[in-house]
């Protein structure tokens, strides 16, 4: 018995220590009461650390923070696991933040934790990755761009580059990628417009977002379609692989082995991934949304909701300096901005 007592004495001591702390702490940390002139404390929790895409979102926050009365910080989990953000959220609530801006790693594994945070008066805003199907567990969701307009924008961009005339193909990711398929449907829809009547979609190839397969598929497109004028690859893996194939074969527009006017390649990717291809002239221009828009808009929304105590519902609109008028859509979703077209003239200004 003596030894059992000895074994558990330290455990008991630990509990006593906890109990002892209890006295010093009389009530749970009070939810911050926002007053005029008090800074709104915002924390941005990306999916994981070391992700250049989220660094760009953070840049939007930092720029907005200079104009707004906010105290901004960012804290990310080491991995993008479904539950890795739970402890980060709890710790930040305890630190006394007013607003949590989150790029959710899971559409529902954070539900309970977010509810607890909101019960303590913390405003929860999602950016880039929403709690799809569980929108009631956050206040507002900020999404990068209007995905329904991407198809038209891409066709229009290719059209400009090939004078709205000629055969083109699409190099996509996997056959069942929801975003890809929605964008391809948007492209097909856009082609019904008389402006694009001379442009003809000859094939949709799938590179499965694997560099090797994407290269092979691109080579296949080049051999199968002698009159091909353009390729659209709305995925960064596909676009990079296709650019490499065009560079190696030299058949790009203006390339050493170009037949006729050569092949024009465009699509969606980040500037850092395509910088070399653009500088070499293999790719003239491509598009993407600017992740920084989401940071800036989330920062403004945070201040409105916390310091000015506004709540938003679908149909509301508000003016955000530098971003025009933003309308709150269905399920409190806010669209941050429109696509940016990158080319030689502006690609140096972006680092994501």
């Amino acid at each position, binding site marked *: 018995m003596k030894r*059992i007592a000895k*074994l*558990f004495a*330290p*455990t008991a*001591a*630990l509990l006593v*220590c*906890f*109990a002892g*702390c*209890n006295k*010093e*702490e009389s009530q*749970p*940390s009070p939810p911050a009461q926002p007053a005029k002139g008090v800074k709104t404390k915002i924390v941005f929790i990306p999916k*994981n*650390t*070391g992700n250049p895409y989220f660094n760009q979102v953070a840049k939007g926050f930092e720029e907005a923070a200079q104009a707004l009365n906010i105290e901004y*910080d960012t*804290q*990310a*989990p*080491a*991995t993008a*696991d*479904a*539950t890795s953000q*739970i*402890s*980060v959220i*709890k*710790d930040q609530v*305890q*630190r*006394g933040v007013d607003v949590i801006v989150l790029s959710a790693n*899971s*559409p*529902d*594994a954070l*539900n*309970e934790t977010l509810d*607890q945070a909101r019960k303590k008066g913390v405003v929860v805003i999602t950016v880039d990755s929403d709690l799809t199907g569980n929108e009631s567990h956050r206040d507002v969701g900020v999404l990068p761009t209007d995905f329904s307009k991407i198809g038209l924008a891409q066709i229009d961009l290719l059209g400009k580059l090939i004078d709205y005339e000629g055969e083109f193909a699409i190099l996509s990711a996997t056959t069942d990628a929801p975003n890809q398929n929605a964008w391809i449907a948007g492209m097909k829809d856009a082609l019904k417009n008389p402006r694009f009547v001379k442009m003809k979609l000859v094939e949709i190839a799938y590179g499965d977002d694997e560099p090797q397969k994407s290269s092979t598929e691109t080579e296949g497109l080049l051999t199968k379609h002698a009159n091909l004028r353009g390729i659209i690859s709305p995925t960064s893996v596909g676009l990079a692989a296709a650019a490499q194939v065009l560079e190696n074969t030299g058949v790009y527009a203006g390339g050493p082995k170009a037949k006729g006017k050569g092949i024009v390649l465009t699509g969606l990717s980040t500037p850092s991934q395509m910088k070399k291809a653009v500088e070499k002239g293999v790719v003239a221009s491509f598009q993407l949304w600017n992740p920084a828009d989401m940071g800036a808009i989330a920062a403004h929304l945070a201040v409105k909701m916390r310091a000015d105590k506004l709540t938003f519902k679908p149909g509301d609109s508000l003016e955000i300096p530098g971003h025009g008028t933003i309308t709150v859509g269905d399920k409190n979703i806010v669209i941050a901005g429109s696509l940016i077209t990158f080319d030689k003239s502006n690609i140096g200004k972006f680092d994501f």
Partner: protein
Amino acid sequence: MGLKKMLFIPLIAVLLAIVGVTRSMPQLMDVRYLLDSSTLYVETGLLALGMTLVIISGNIDLSVGSNLVLTACLVAKLFERGWSISLVLVAACLLGTSFGALNGIMVAKFRLPSFLVTLGTMALYRGAAQAALGPASIKLPGGFKGIDQARLFGLPWPVLIFFALAIGFAYLLHRTFLGRWIFSVGSNERASVYSGVPTDRVKISVFAITGLMAGIGALLLDSRLGVARYDVARGIELDSITIAVLGGTAIQGGKGTVLGTVSALALVAFAKTAMGVANVKAEYQLTAMGLLLVLAVLLTNLAGKFSARAIA
């Protein structure tokens, strides 16, 4: 006795850390918050208790995390079929125990290395969980959710359950025949066989008990998250091995205490919580935890060598 004392190194470190750090950080001196945060580590702690027995017996169980996730997913499926909470509680314990026992049977009866067996079942159980649920998730009934927010005598239920089980484990390991046999199998299996220790039954028992911990952990996880998914609790098996080893359990088997494991869990949970509130970036948190582990292993082993020399 020198060795026994060394096992208290993690514990002393916890106490020093708690006293030192809470003084300098007002936001951390909030016992409600500390208790709330500790609920995040209970599932890992339960697995670490089981892992302590497995490692002392000279084995390893890499499948505990997958077992926990598979059981958690099956629990949600049972709720979907309209099973009552009490029935599901029993089913979860039985499921976890049988998945664990299956490891034990393969290790004991087929004489396979536990590393290989559980490497296989780790993939098998996680795969089965994904096959059962797919990328979707199942929401759990309201009456079952939120055990981490429910309190008794001011303590969260998962923490109470953990301490109750830890006391049970300490009794089992340090005060019963089975406990003595576990040490014996881990120190010298052949000698144990000759001295009449039912080694097969001992091995199956430690894996089954660990499975039971995974079953209980599955219930706590489901209740805490409110949803069941196949992609949660990744890496929890390594965390539980880390905690057992940090607590002084010898990876070669034959040595270890429950108190060491409990202290190591408290240390890890406290260190992570403190760093979180102090806003330490994730990469530095990883570095600090790694350093802590290396130091603890070095200290325990060096001290062990010195005391062994002193005895000799």
